[in-house]
């Protein structure tokens, strides 16, 4: 019957509509992710990409070319005896030319290899411009830290101009001036602009060429600098000698309100110590080696992205400033116990500012020696003496007796706890500097109280023994003790006694 047949055909047609769903579209291609895989998206400097960028396995090509007795010059041009790291051209001229370069060289070579029965690559558009590539790039960026820098100095026999250069606009020449060396990224940004090539290009140009031209030097293959495992193998020099770039040993950070008055008390800043705490100068001098105020004025200017000086110094997240970096140190296990308890340091309490802004103009003058230089170490030593005075009076143990009908008193080994905390502080220079003075170490537990820490107030003055109906942000006594102890133990990863182990701290009655 006609209608039955048409019904069957129609039904099958409808059913076929969702057959595609039942297929798992997995072409079982095992993907690879490596440091040698490059994303070719050169066209994006001209226009928005029409097709996805090409994932290019560089090592595969260098090996294959090596096997055929070829070298880098197959793909890379040379200029002044150095390889140009761009593909088959010196610079990007226009869209058509660049496109032809890529398609011309790549596809032709692949076709010719195919004719010659050698292993070859794809020629179809979609085989290179893959929408969801299984081949992906994973370059770990090497950190050119003090150790690595020192090894390069040694290898280059102290010739800084091997790498460092400036640029003379008039003569259009690269020049070198001693004492004005900067980081590469001061001029070479993430993208090529006008005549200044991108940092990536500049780095490869400088590093790879030098490594190639110098026997027994650094890596040439991608993985040598971009593979995590190989980076770990790089020999590290402990305590490399200090770089001399006319930087001060120590200084006072200050802003003048007028001729002889500071905005706030000066911050004593030990530059030398900080040089050892960061991986490179760029951590703080993130654009160039000038003073911060050059770009970050008090009210902000364009060069500094309109970030004012106070913002730059005190920003809680930026690693370029002081506060964020110090705050990170507070996350260390030795420090966390107290520091999870105290309120956020950043500007809650006027006392906080004095931790850094501690030196008045008069004190600066008095600390200058005969040569007019200031020795900050003297300030530090003075404060350290004061701290040790008070701590010897800390009691051995305390019985926290006012608990409940359910439990006995807690035996609290006060002395040994303080000793452990002090050990952590003494071992850390930053901690020592900020834990000067009478009450700082005690203040996290004996909080919101006066400086008379030898006779701290009774906790139940504020922490009432009964819960109370009124919700206030002050816990009851039981809760306060528990919060204090548990939080500190948790933060310092102290597993015993466990917070849930009631009788671990107080016996059952």
């Amino acid at each position, binding site marked *: *019957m*006609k*209608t*039955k047949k*048409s*019904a069957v055909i*129609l*039904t099958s047609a*409808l*059913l076929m*509509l*969702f057959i595609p*769903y*039942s297929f798992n579209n997995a072409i079982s291609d095992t993907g690879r992710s490596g440091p040698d895989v490059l994303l070719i998206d050169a066209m994006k400097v001209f226009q928005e990409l029409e097709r996805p960028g090409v994932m290019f396995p560089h090592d595969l090509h260098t090996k294959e070319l090596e096997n055929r007795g070829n070298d880098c010059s197959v793909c890379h041009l040379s200029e002044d005896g150095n390889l140009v790291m761009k593909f088959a051209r010196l610079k990007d001229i226009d869209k058509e030319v660049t496109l032809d370069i890529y398609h011309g060289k790549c596809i032709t070579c692949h076709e010719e290899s195919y004719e010659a029965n050698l292993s070859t690559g794809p020629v179809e558009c979609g085989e290179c411009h893959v929408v969801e590539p299984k081949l992906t790039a994973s370059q770990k960026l090497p950190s050119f830290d003090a150790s690595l820098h020192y090894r390069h100095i040694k290898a280059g026999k102290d010739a800084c101009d091997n790498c460092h250069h400036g640029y003379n606009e008039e003569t259009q020449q690269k020049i070198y001036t001693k004492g004005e060396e900067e980081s590469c990224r001061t001029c070479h940004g993430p993208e090529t602009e006008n005549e200044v090539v991108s940092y990536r290009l500049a780095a490869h140009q400088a590093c790879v060429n030098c490594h190639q031209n110098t026997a027994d030097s650094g890596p040439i293959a991608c993985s040598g600098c971009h593979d995590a495992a190989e980076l770990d193998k790089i020999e590290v020099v402990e305590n490399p000698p200090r770089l001399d770039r006319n930087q001060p040993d120590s200084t006072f950070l200050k802003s003048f309100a007028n001729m002889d008055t500071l905005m706030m008390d000066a911050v004593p800043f030990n530059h030398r110590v900080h040089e050892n705490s960061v991986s490179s100068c760029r951590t703080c001098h993130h654009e160039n080696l000038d003073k911060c105020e050059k770009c970050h004025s008090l009210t902000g200017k364009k060069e500094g992205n309109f970030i004012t000086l106070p913002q730059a110094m005190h920003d809680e997240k930026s690693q370029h400033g002081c506060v964020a970096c110090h705050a990170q140190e507070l996350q260390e296990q030795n420090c966390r116990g107290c520091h999870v308890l105290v309120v956020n340091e950043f500007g809650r309490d006027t006392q906080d500012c004095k931790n850094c802004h501690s030196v008045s103009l008069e004190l600066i003058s008095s600390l200058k020696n005969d040569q007019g230089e200031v020795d900050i170490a003297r300030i530090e030593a003075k404060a350290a003496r004061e701290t040790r005075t008070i701590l010897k009076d800390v009691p051995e143990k305390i019985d926290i007796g006012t608990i409940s009908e359910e439990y006995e008193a807690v035996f609290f080994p006060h002395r040994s706890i303080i000793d452990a905390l002090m050990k952590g502080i003494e071992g850390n220079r930053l901690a020592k500097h900020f834990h000067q003075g009478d009450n700082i170490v005690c203040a996290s537990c004996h909080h919101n109280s006066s400086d008379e820490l030898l006779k701290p107030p009774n906790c139940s003055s504020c922490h009432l023994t009964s819960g109370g109906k009124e919700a206030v942000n002050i816990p009851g006594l039981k809760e306060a003790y528990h919060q204090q102890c548990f939080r500190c133990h948790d933060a310092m990863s102290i597993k015993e006694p466990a917070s849930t182990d009631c009788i671990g701290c107080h016996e059952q009655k």
Partner: protein
Amino acid sequence: MVDETKALRKKSLLTPVNIISGIILVAGLYATIIRFTQGLGAVTALSDYNPWGIWIWFKLVAITLAGAGYTTCAAVYVFGMKRYHSAVRPAVLIGLLGYTLFAVSLVYDLGRPYRLPYPFFVSQGTTSVLFEIGLCVAFYLIVLYLEFSPAGLEWLGFRKIRNIAVKATMALTMFGIILSTLHQSSLGALYLSAPSKLHPLWYSGYLPIYFFITSIYGGLAMVIFVFWLSERYLPDNIGHAYQEEKTGVVLGFAKAISMVLVGYFFIRIFGISTANSWHHLFSSWGVLFLIEMLVGILLPAILFAIGAREKNITLIRWTAVLTILGIIYNKFFISTYAFNWQLSPVDRYFPSGLEVILTLFMITVGVVAFRVITSLMPVFFEHKDYPSSH
């Protein structure tokens, strides 16, 4: 004439259908006793995560298919299509049995069925969709029984009361349509309260409208299906007027269902569009959803159209079955499978044996009641005292 033919045939009560029905009825009675002496937990696999199970599924399907009553009455009395007149009483009976079974199932499902009058008389929760459903269903049950009363009264021979009852038909029909619109859509609105628990392909702000439309085409398809079964298995009950009109009924209903299905198909798609749930189509849920749309809605629409044009009664009948299966499928997802779809598999629901038995029990009770009533009362045939009633 009907009685004579009946007398000529000697029928044994022990047909296979009757035996199976009997077994289910007995098992159902046993399960009923357990339910009311030991509680819901002893009979169902319901849990705190899954408070509603397949009995809700049954209730939804029963009410949707019981839409046969108001749709047929609307066609005949409001739109004046007198050529479907012989379908009215059977359709009303379907409606009546569907709603009665709904009420019976409710008695089983409620924790305290003896408090059923509470929402009406004791404490009215007027913010609740369920309250509105309760009110409308209660009124509609009365309407259904009143609409069906002429058949019963004819059988009982109460002429005067029967004549009064017949006069109320128009008003009852209109009242029934209003009530049906309200509660059919409110059954869909029940699920509006749980957007985070119902899968986005089935959850939509348009759920009330969807449920209402399914009741229209589901009711009409149910009429076709029941007619088919009745002609096949209860031929002794069929009367003259029915025989004359039956082809017209099937063809006419097929056309109507086809158009409603097409409209419904589109508004389901619009629902996905307004909720921007397209990406859900590309998942295994999407496949299940597409099966419902293409095989449960679009395909029947096409087949009904073909059947109506070719006057192919067999095709129409089977398509009616497909349509009803589509409704069962849709309500299954909404009430059970796509509900709590994000819950971990250990917490998901699977019905217990007694739960299934009780569901079959309720269906069987309905079928048996239908058989008994149509053989006794003038539903498919005209009572000899009232030849013009059809």
